[in-house]
């Protein structure tokens, strides 16, 4: 899956979590919590939707790796990458 596709899917998920925030205003390098007024319930919903959308397991200890858009894209890209032989 290409990085741009992952980013588009994540932005779509964010839209369901914080519909009042325009997608193009979300800075890739700034924490979601500073930009989207999301609480722990929103964050859990976000992680669950990423899990379902990309079919990846996300341990709670990895939540900190999902704190910005660019971290999120990298995390999903890495998790979706084929296993090395």
């Amino acid at each position: 899956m290409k990085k741009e596709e992952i980013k588009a899917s994540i932005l779509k998920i964010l839209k369901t979590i914080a519909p009042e925030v325009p997608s193009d205003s979300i800075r890739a390098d700034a924490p979601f919590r500073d930009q989207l007024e999301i609480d722990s319930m929103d964050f859990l919903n976000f992680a669950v939707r990423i899990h379902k959308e990309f079919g990846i397991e996300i341990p709670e200890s990895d939540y900190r790796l999902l704190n910005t858009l660019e971290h999120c894209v990298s995390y999903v890209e890495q998790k979706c990458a084929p296993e090395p032989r």
Partner: protein
Amino acid sequence: MLEFKMPSLGAEMTSGTLTEWKIKPGDRVKRGDIVAVVDTDKAAIEMEIWMDGVVEKLLVEPGKKVEVGTTLALLQGEGAQAAAVSPPAARETGERLRISPLARKRAQELGVNPATLRGTGPEGTITESDVERAAGEAKPDAGEAPSIRRAIAAAMSRSKREIPHYYLAFTIPMAGTLDWLERENARRPITSRLLLAALLVKAVAKACQEHPEFNGFWKNDRFEPSSSVHAGMAISLRKQGLIAPAILNAEKQSLDQLMESLKDLTARARAGSLRSSEMMEGTITITNLGDLGVDQVFGVIYPPQVALVGFGRVSVEKNLVATLSGDHRATDGARGALFLAKIGKLLASPEVLL
């Protein structure tokens, strides 16, 4: 003949707009059935009926705004025959429209039919922007505060006018609890993980059972305790204000059930799909602003309740400050201190919350 009246769905509510009937003459209803949708200043609420009977007549047309206490429908009490009432033409049925309270109000102002819109909010909820886009106009500068702001203003002003608040804070060491939660969540799939918030609700609900003087209402110059704990949860509607629907019978729910209740209540609060019992029956309010970084919360009691428990963030030292806003007419600081200490003791031993 029984009268079904417009209830007060919150301390600040003086009137509501009946937007939809879900019953028709001849229908048999029982206590707890959802019979109508009412738009208040805060939210669209699915209204439950609190009597058993057969619908005789609907007195208020959808779209009409009526005062609290207005008779909305007449029912025959239990034992009446449904066949004795002549049914009208079948009402239209369909999927419940998901629309935020602000969007519904805006649609009325702009003359937009929400049923024709496609929502872009959570679970397809129609938002204010959807309505404005459809109306083809930008939002003008508001000269008057939005209705939800005015509703909050009314309730909180009443609280501060009538309730002599006292405030207490209690620091709870949470290291052991957080370790427990981490271990618990490590063995759970992501879809059934617990949030600290569920533990907070459980602890407050259990503490209320030991300290019933904080769980109930101040009415007619006396305290009326509640036999169940209906935990009002202060839920942020983001830029649209705040609402405090209740998790009913919180003391009877397991942690997993409370977690599901929290998810469900939050989602429905933001989608504008709450039930009247959730708005009317809260016996104590819990507000958790830790996620937003505050250390302590000193809240305003939601009348006619007599207490509000607040939680701040977990500090670097893994401490959590629980606060109590108490109604001095109903309790004193000494009782409040014991109540907070009980909440702290329960939170420090999460295994007893299971």
